[in-house]
């Protein structure tokens, strides 16, 4: 543990000096950053959050003093291995399609007695704190490392959610008339030097899935796709989407299905 902490401090220090420079300079620097990231992935601080998430999954907690080991992530109660790459999916008990974080929050509410309002108050990581669902999602994601992305489309509601997600993806509104597709609907676009993957194409869509949840070196925090989509909508100049809301599940279904067939390599690292 001491070794891990030392490593973590070193990584944060290195990130502090390297990441801002990489964010603003030319494509060559972006390439160097990719190499740097590959090295960092060998000792990704996300592992610390995996360990914390596993503890949280197994420990009896909350007003009902229960663990999450009876939580059904789609493959049966307590089955974690392979669950992440098959989410979002349809759940008969709620009669709806849920993504991983929505399902974890659902289990924390139903099994452990936590309140949605408390969990939604500060849902994203800061330098001071990492909310529990983020560590839990990181743990779940790590148990799908090396597996193929296989977001299901066999249930009618899964197909309807995909179609709804696609429509939300193309929905132009807000002060600047943007949709998700304004930035992520064409090939070879960049904002400044940052390449923008085209999530409507199978060859680039995996970039909406692979690398998440991610340890973000800027600020040294762990983030899930809930945060990423929230920040996209901020930059889209929209109002704010609710935490673990169905809008986000629909978008995650659209992008996840488009990414199907690609290998998932576990929690990642971000600039």
């Amino acid at each position, binding site marked *: 543990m001491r070794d891990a902490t030392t490593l973590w401090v070193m990584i944060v220090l290195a990130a502090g000096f390297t990441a801002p420079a990489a964010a*603003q*300079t*030319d494509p060559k620097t972006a390439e160097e950053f990719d190499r740097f990231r590959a090295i960092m992935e060998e000792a990704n601080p996300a592992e610390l959050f995996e360990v914390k998430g596993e503890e949280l999954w197994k420990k009896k907690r909350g007003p009902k003093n229960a663990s999450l080991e009876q939580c059904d992530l789609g493959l049966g109660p307590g089955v974690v291995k392979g669950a992440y790459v098959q989410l979002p999916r349809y759940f008969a008990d709620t009669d709806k399609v849920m993504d991983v974080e929505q399902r974890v929050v659902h289990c924390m509410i139903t099994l452990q007695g936590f309140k949605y309002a408390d969990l939604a108050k500060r849902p994203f990581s800061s330098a001071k704190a990492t909310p529990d669902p983020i560590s839990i999602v990181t743990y779940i994601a790590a148990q799908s490392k090396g597996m193929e992305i296989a977001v299901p489309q066999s249930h*009618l509601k899964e*197909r*309807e959610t995909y*179609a*709804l997600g696609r*429509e*939300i993806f*193309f*929905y*132009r*509104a*807000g*002060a*600047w*008339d*943007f*949709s998700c597709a*304004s*930035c992520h609907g064409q090939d*070879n*676009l*960049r*904002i*400044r*030097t940052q390449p*923008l993957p085209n999530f409507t194409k199978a060859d680039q869509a995996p970039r909406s899935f692979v690398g998440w949840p991610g340890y973000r070196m800027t600020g040294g925090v762990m983030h899930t796709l809930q945060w990423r989509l929230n920040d996209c909508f*901020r*930059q889209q*100049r*929209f*109002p*704010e*989407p*609710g935490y673990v*809301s*169905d*809008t*986000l599940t*629909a978008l995650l279904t659209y992008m996840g299905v488009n990414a199907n067939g690609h290998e998932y390599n576990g929690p990642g690292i971000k600039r």
Partner: protein
Amino acid sequence: MRKALTSAAAVALVVAGCAGMEGNDAELQKQAAEVMKRDFHARGIAKMDRLNQDELQRVCTETRDNPSPEVQKRLEAAEMAKIKLPADGQYLGDWKQGRSIARRGRGMAWNDKPGKTSRGEPNGGGCYNCHEMSPQETSFGSVGPSLRAFGKTRGYGVEIQKYAYMRIYNSKAFSACSTMPRFGPSHSLTEQQIKDVTAYLMDPNSPVNK
């Protein structure tokens, strides 16, 4: 046989269901709007009315940015009518101010302030997010066309000045489903700021034209 018929019927239903889903974009678009209006909340300056599509946003969404020529013409005329030309007839402001507006990408998000960024600076135009402009600025996006040597290649005359001013004010008057924000009508940039950015493109001394 009965079983086979049942599955055939089921397949037919699924196919019909899918076809209905694919073909009925207006219905899906309505549903998307309803779900978003239920799920989103106002935060800071980003109020819920931002989810209400005006006609242009609705048509561009529905047609995936490819409206029929007649509809496009009508939308562009409506956007043209929203452009307010400067009362003093001067299109060019200060190119140095224009440069900082072009560089600054913040403003209008829920963490920003009315007319100002979260840091208290005037709203940015975010031009460099999408466009190449001065050769000195190597970090530029590729969503929009290059504007390098804008005035130098087009001429510095008042008609081109006016065109650049109008295009920054409301790009959708020229291309209805353009990705570029309507900086004037959305009150993202002031008249003076639009003049400053116009000068950055059109002043012979601006680095854009060097």
